[in-house]
C-alpha cells in the first residue's frame, strides 16, 4: 500500500503530446482504482452501519441528517469540524510518512504529548522576558524536535536492533505520557492549582490565536501546509524517492547503496515532528498549559485517518475533515437520538475494518487495467 501511485502523477511527465494523451488515459484508468475502491469501502461501511442502526431501532436517515447538521450544515458546525480536524491532519501525517518507507508507526500520541509538554515547559521561563511571537516560534520548533526525537528512537531501534517499530512506538507513547505526568505532578507543577496537576499557564498574550474571521486555530493552516510540503518531499525529491524505494524493497535499497538507516530515522523523525507540532498547538492554541488532558487520543485517531487516506498526504486533509465532522456531530447524535457516545466509534471501526478488507480488492478488477495488459496477470 505504501507504493500506491498517486493520482496526480498522471498529470506529470508528458512525453510527446499524442503519447501523453494515451499515457494520461492509461494512468487515469489505473489510478481511478485508488479512488473507486476506498469510496466503495466507505459506502459498504455506511450500509453496514445503517443495518446496525436499524437493528437497534434508530433511523439511518436521522443519523445522516444529524451528521450533516452537527458537522457541516451551519457555519458553527463547519468551524467545529475544521477545528477538530486540525490535530488529526498532523497526527495522520505522523503515520503516513513512515508508511511510505514501509514502517507502521503508531506512536503519534506519545510525540504529541511530549512535544506539547516540552513546549509548555520551555515557555514558562521565557514568559515575560521574551515577546510572544519569538516564544511561540521557539516553542513550536522545540515541540517538533522533541516529537521527532521520540519517534526517531523507534525508527533507530527498527534499523539498528530490528525492534518491531509498531510495538516500540506504541510503548514509547505510554512512556511519553508517564514522563509528562512525572514532571507535571512534580517539579513543574503549578502549585496554585491544588487539584489538577498542570504546568503554569502561558496566559492569553502568549497563546496563538485563531485564524482571523473564524474560530479555527492556526494548527489547521499549518497542517494543510505540511501536507503539501510533505507530499512534495515524498513524491518529488530524491529523498522521497529513496524512501519509497526502501519501503518497496528494503534489500534492493541496501544493494543500491541507499543510506537506509538514515532514511528510516529521518522519516520517523519527520513523523514525530508532525505529532509534536500538533502537541504544540494543543498547548498554545487550546489548553494554554500542559497537563494530562493532552493525551486526548488524537494520535490514535490519526492512525485511522492515515490508513483511510492510503498514507497520501494530499488526501489526509479530506479524510481528517470527514472524521472531524463525524466527531463534531457525535454530540448532536447523542443528544437528539439518545444514542451512546460509542455509536460514532462503531462507525469508525466499521470504516476501518471494511477499508482494510478492501485492500485485497486492488488489482482484481480488469476495468482498471490498461487494455493491452488485461490478459496479463
Amino acid at each position, binding site marked *: 500500500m505504501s507504493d500506491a501511485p498517486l493520482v496526480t502523477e498522471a498529470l506529470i511527465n508528458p512525453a510527446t503530446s499524442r503519447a501523453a494523451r494515451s499515457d494520461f488515459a492509461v494512468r487515469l484508468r489505473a489510478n481511478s482504482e485508488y479512488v473507486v475502491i476506498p469510496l466503495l469501502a466507505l459506502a459498504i461501511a455506511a450500509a453496514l452501519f445503517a443495518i446496525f442502526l436499524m437493528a437497534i431501532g434508530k433511523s439511518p*436517515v436521522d443519523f445522516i441528517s444529524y451528521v450533516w447538521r452537527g458537522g457541516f450544515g451551519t457555519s458553527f458546525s463547519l468551524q467545529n469540524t475544521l*477545528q477538530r480536524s486540525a490535530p488529526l491532519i498532523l497526527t495522520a501525517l505522523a503515520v503516513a510518512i513512515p508508511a511510505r518507507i514501509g514502517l507502521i508507526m503508531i506512536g503519534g500520541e506519545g510525540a504529541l504529548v511530549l512535544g506539547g509538554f516540552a513546549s509548555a515547559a520551555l515557555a514558562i521561563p521565557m514568559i515575560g522576558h521574551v515577546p510572544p511571537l519569538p516564544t511561540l516560534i521557539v516553542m513550536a520548533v522545540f515541540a517538533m524536535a522533541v516529537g521527532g526525537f521520540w519517534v526517531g528512537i523507534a525508527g533507530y531501534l527498527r534499523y539498528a536492533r530490528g525492534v518491531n517499530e509498531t510495538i516500540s512506538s506504541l510503548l514509547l507513547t505510554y512512556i511519553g505520557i508517564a514522563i509528562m*505526568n512525572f514532571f507535571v505532578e512534580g517539579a513543574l507543577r503549578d502549585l496554585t492549582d*491544588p487539584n489538577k496537576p498542570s504546568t503554569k499557564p502561558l496566559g492569553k498574550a502568549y497563546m496563538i490565536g485563531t485564524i482571523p474571521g473564524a474560530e479555527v486555530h492556526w494548527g489547521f493552516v499549518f497542517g494543510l501546509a505540511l501536507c503539501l510540503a510533505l507530499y512534495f518531499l515524498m513524491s518529488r525529491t530524491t529523498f522521497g524517492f529513496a524512501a519509497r524505494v526502501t519501503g518497496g524493497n528494503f534489500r534492493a535499497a541496501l544493494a543500491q547503496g541507499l543510506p537506509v538507516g538514515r532514511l528510516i530515522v529521518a522519516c520517523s523523525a519527520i513523523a514525530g515532528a508532525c505529532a509534536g507540532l500538533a502537541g504544540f498547538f494543543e498547548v498554545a492554541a487550546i489548553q494554554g498549559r500542559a497537563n494530562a*488532558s493532552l493525551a486526548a487520543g488524537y494520535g490514535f485517531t490519526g492512525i485511522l485517518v492515515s490508513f483511510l487516506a492510503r498514507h497520501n498526504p494530499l488526501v489526509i486533509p479530506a479524510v481528517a475533515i470527514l472524521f472531524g465532522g463525524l466527531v463534531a456531530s457525535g454530540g448532536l447524535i447523542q443528544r437528539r437520538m439518545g444514542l451512546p457516545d460509542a455509536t460514532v466509534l462503531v462507525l469508525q471501526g466499521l470504516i476501518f475494518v471494511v477499508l482494510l478488507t478492501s485492500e485485497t480488492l486492488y488489482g482484481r478488477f480488469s476495468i482498471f487495467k490498461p487494455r493491452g495488459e488485461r490478459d496479463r496477470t
Partner: protein
Amino acid sequence: MSAREISRRALLRTAAFGVAGATLGMGAAGRAFAAKDLTVGVVYVGARDDFGWNQAHAVAIKALKEVPGVKVVEEENVPETDAVSKSMESMINLDGAGLILATSFGYYKPFVLDVAKKYPDVEFRHAAPLWNKDTDPKNAGSYFGYLNQAHYVDGVAAGLSTKTNKLGFVAAKPIASVLSNINSFMLGARSVNPKATVQVIFTGDWSMPVREAESANALVDAGCDVITCHVDGPKVVIETAEKRGVKSCGHNASQAPLAPKGFITGAEYKWITIYKGYATDLAASKTLPNFLAGGYEADYVQNTPFGAGASPEAQKAALAAIAGLKARKPIYVGPLKDNKTGKVVIDKTYDNLDPYLDKMDYLLEGVVGSTT
C-alpha cells in the same frame, strides 16, 4: 423474495419515519424554546454508567428530567480539550440550552470560562469549587459537595466492621480532595475504634483498572478487611474486595449491586439537591447562586443504603455520625499530626467547610502511606 421485499419496505418505512422524526424534532425544539422552557445541557467526561463520578451526576440528571418544563440534553465521553467548548456551544447554538452543567474538573479552565464570556445570556455551572468572584464571569459558577463527610460516615461503619483493625484505601492522586477523603475516613474509623489504621495505595491516575485491582489485592494481602477507594470508577476495587471475601465501602455513586455480600455503605454525592435548585430558580427567573458548596448540612452528599456487610451496631453508629454532620459537628478536631514527621498540621478544630482544609497536602497520623 418476500423477505427481501419486507426488508425493503421496512427500510423505506424507517427512512420515512426518520424524515418525519427529524422535522418533528426540530419543530418541537423550536416550540420548546419559544415557550421559555429550560433546556439544560450536561457534559460528562466519561460514561454515564461508570459506577462512579459520572453516574452520580447522571442519576441526578435523570431525576431532573422529571421536573416539568425542563428538557435535558446530555453528552458523555467529552474530553477535557476544546471538544468540551464545542459541545457546550453546540448545545447552546443547536439545542437552545440556557443552563450548562459541566461536570468534570478539567473543563473549567479555560473552556467553561471562555465559553461563558462568549455567551453572557447562558448560565454555566461547574462541578468543582473553582469560581472566583473577582476574575470569573458572573454567568459562570461552581457547585461542589464535601464528599469527605460521607467518607467519614463510611469510616465510622468500617471501624466497627473490621476485625484486623486494618482498613485499605485505593486512591488515585495525592491531591487535596482525595487526601481529605482518606483523612476523614480514618478519623471516622478512629472515632469508634481507636486501634484502626488506614493503609493507602496511590495508583497515580484517575482510571487505572489493572493497578486498582492490584492495589486492592495487595491491601487484602496486607491484612485489610475493609476496602474503600477514591478513583473515577470504583467498580474494580469493590468487585475485587468482594471476590477476596472482604468488606467494602463505596465512593461517588452506589456500588451496592457489585458487592451483595460485603458492601457496608458508600460515600455518594446528592447532586439532585443542587440541580433541582437551579431549575427552580431559573423557572422563577431568579439569579442562580454562583457558588454552592456543602456537605450533609446542605444535603449535597449522602451515604448509600446499608448493604449486607453492615452490622447493626455499625449502622447505628453511622446514622448517629450522619446526624452529627447535619448539625455541623466538626470532623477535624485539632490538634492533629501528619503521619510523616509528626508535625501538627491541624492546629485547632476547623469547621467542616473551612477553606483551610481545602489546601490539605498531608496524610494524618493513623494513615499508613505516603503522598510521594
